[in-house]
C-alpha cells in the first residue's frame, strides 16, 4: 500500500538546480534509504518533503504530519530534553499538559534516554541528542519519518542499535525515509536503497 509518492520533483535555488526529476514511492511500514555522497541532493529531497524548501516543479503526496530528524538534531537549546519532546504536543496539538509530559517521558524511556529528561541539549552526547530528537519527532505521531544522516554522530555499536530502532518503528506501521552516505547502515536497516547522484535518482 503506497502512502508516499514523489513525482518529478525539482528544487532550484536561484539559477541553480539542486534536485531534478526525482520520483519514488514508499509503502506503509517501509524503510527507504536515499544513498549518495554529500552534496548529491539527499538532504534537499528530505527538506522538500518536510515542506522546508519550496518545489520548483513536481508533486509530493504524503500523509501529514511529517516529522524530520536532522543531522545535527537541532534540539531547542533553551529547553530540557523533556520539554523538547512535549512542546509541540501542548502548543501545536493542544493536548493537555500532564498527558503530553507523560507521553514525552514514555518516548524518552522507550529510546533509552529517560534518565536524561532534565538535561539541556548541550549536556547530551551525540547519541543521546539524536535519540531525544527522534523522541521529539515521534511525539507528534507522524505516519512518515524523515531522517537526515542519522549515523553521522554515532559510533559503530550505536549504528547497529539505531538500525534496530528504525526497524521497530517501521514494524509499528511508520514509513521511514533515511538519507545516508553509509552503505553498511543502509544495508542493515533499509528495505530498499535508492542511489542519489547529481540531484537525481540513478538506477542502482
Amino acid at each position: 500500500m503506497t502512502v508516499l509518492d514523489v513525482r518529478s520533483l525539482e528544487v532550484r535555488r536561484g539559477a541553480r538546480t539542486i534536485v531534478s526529476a526525482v520520483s519514488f514511492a514508499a509503502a506503509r511500514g517501509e524503510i527507504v534509504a536515499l544513498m549518495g555522497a554529500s552534496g548529491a541532493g539527499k538532504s534537499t529531497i528530505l527538506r522538500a518533503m518536510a515542506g522546508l524548501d519550496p518545489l520548483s516543479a513536481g508533486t509530493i503526496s504524503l500523509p501529514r504530519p511529517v516529522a524530520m530528524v536532522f543531522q545535527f538534531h537541532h534540539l531547542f537549546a533553551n529547553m530540557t530534553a523533556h520539554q523538547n519532546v512535549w512542546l509541540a504536543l501542548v502548543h501545536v496539538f493542544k493536548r493537555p499538559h500532564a498527558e503530553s509530559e507523560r507521553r514525552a517521558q514514555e518516548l524518552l524511556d522507550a529510546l533509552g534516554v529517560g534518565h536524561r529528561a532534565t538535561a539541556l541539549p548541550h549536556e547530551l552526547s551525540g547519541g543521546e541528542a539524536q535519540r531525544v530528537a527522534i523522541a521529539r519527532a515521534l511525539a507528534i505521531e507522524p505516519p512518515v519519518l524523515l531522517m537526515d544522516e542519522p549515523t553521522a554522530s554515532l559510533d559503530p555499536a550505536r549504528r547497529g542499535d539505531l538500525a534496530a530502532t528504525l526497524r521497530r518503528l517501521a514494524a509499528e506501521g511508520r514509513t521511514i525515509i533515511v538519507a545516508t552516505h553509509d552503505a553498511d547502515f543502509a544495508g542493515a536497516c533499509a528495505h530498499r536503497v535508492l542511489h542519489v547522484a547529481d540531484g537525481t535518482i540513478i538506477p542502482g
Partner: protein
Amino acid sequence: MNCRRPAVVLCVALLLPSAAGAQADVVLRWGGDAEGGAPYVEADPTDPSRVVGFDVEVAELLASALGRTPQFVQVGFTSIDAEAARRDFDIGLSGIEDSPARRARLAITLPYYEFREVLTVRAADANKYRSLADLRGHRVATLGATLAYDLLAASQARDGIIPVTYEDDVHPYSDLLLGRVDAVVLDAILANRGVRRNAGLVNQPSTLAVGHYVGILAADQTALRDRMNDVLRNAMRDGRLEAIFKRWNVWNQDQPRLYARVLGDASPYPVAASSLAASSDAARAMSESRTWQAAARYFPALLRAAVITIVLSCLSMGLAVVVGALIASGRVYGSAPLRLVLTSYVEIVRGTPLLLQLFVLYFGLAAVIQLPAFVAALIGLGLNYAAYESEIYRGALEAVPVGQLDAARTLGFSERQILRLIRAPQAFRLALAPMTNDFVALLKDSSLVSVITVVELTKQTSIFASNIGSWVVPGLMCAGMYLAMSLPLARVARRIERGWRHA
C-alpha cells in the same frame, strides 16, 4: 542700536599660535560666553568672527588702559569660574554676578554694573501673580547657578514655588508664553529682552533682589585685579563706563548711585555681593568652616535628584526595550517597505546627537505639542536607546541557529510561536550582557536631560558645586551615587546569566 561699534577682537582660534606666544605680555586674554548674547557678548551679526556687547567694550577699556590688546576666549558660561581659576584667560567678563562663593575662590573686580532681579509673568496673570508668594505650587523658571536661582531656592522653602532651571536665557520666556512655567525670575536686562521678544509677557514692577556684575580672575591675580580696579574707578569718574552702557541701552539711575558708593570706599569690596548675600545659601556655605557641612545640607537634594535619575532611566529603558523589540521583530520578519522604514529610523536616531533630539522634542515641537519636561526626557531617551536596543535584538535573533527554527517548523509551530517559545528566549540570553551595558550608559546619558529643565543628579551636583565654589566634594558624592546605582545592576545581570548557565 545702530551706533553699535564692532570690537576689534578676533576669536582666539583665528590667531596663529606663534603670534599668541610672542604677544603673551601685550595681550589681555578675556573669557566670555558669546552664546549669552547681546547686550553682554555676542557674535557680530555682520561678522561672526568678531564679538560685540557691553562686556566686550569693558574688556577693551581695561585692555587699552593697561596697554594691552584684548583677545576674546570663548568659554561655556557654566564653567567660567573653573576656567578663571585655571588661568585659561586673564579675566572673565560675561554678565558674571558677584557672590560670596566667587569672592572666596577668585579675585573679583569692583562691581561695574548693578542689576535688579524682576518677576516676569504672562500679561493675563499680571494681577494674579504679583510676587513669588503668589506662586505657591507653580513652576518658576530661571538660569542655574545665579543669584536668581538662590532667590528661587529660598522661595521654594518659604513660599512653596517650584524652581525650574534652564541653561540659557531665551527658553524660559518662550516656555512662559507656552504655559510650561508660570513665571520667570532673572535680572532686568534679560527680563526686558524677554518681554521685548515675546508679546504677551510683562515684568512686575517690584524688585526681588539687587546684584552686581564683576570681572573674575584667578585668586592669585590680586595685583592685576587692583590695577583693573583703578581703571574701573577712573572710567566711572570720567563717564566712559556710562557711555558704554548708554550705547547698549542699559544705563539707568541705579548706576550713578553704585558708582558713588564704589568711589567713596577704597576697599576691594565696597558693596555687598547682593541684597541676598547675607542670608543666601552661598553665604552660609562659605561661612561654614568645613565643606562636609555643606555636603550634609545638600545630601537630601542630591538623593532626590538621584531618584529622578534612576526613575527616568528605568522608565526610559523599559520604553527602549519594548520599542527596540518591536523594531527588531519588524526588521527580521517584516516586509521590505517596513524594513526600510525601520532601518531608516535606526540610522537617523543613531546618526544624530541625543542632545539635538532632546532639543527638538522639547523646544522644537513646542508649537505643535507641549510635552512636559519629564515626559519629553523619557520619550527622548527611550526612543534614542530603542534604536540601539533594536540592533542588539536583531543581531541576537539572527544568532539563534536556523536549524532550530526549521526543526520547529517541521513540528508544526507557527512563526509567532517559534519566536515566542524558541527564538526570543534564546536571543534574550545573548542580548542580556549588551543590554546591561546600555542601561549603565543610559543611566549616565540621562544627565543630558538637564538641558530641557529636568533636574537630575548631574545637574543638582553642578548647582551644588557652583554654590560652594568647588567640584571636589560634590563630584565625589555624585560619582558615589552613580556607582551605587550602576554596580548593583551589573551584579543582578551577572546573577541572571549564572542562573541560566546552571539551569
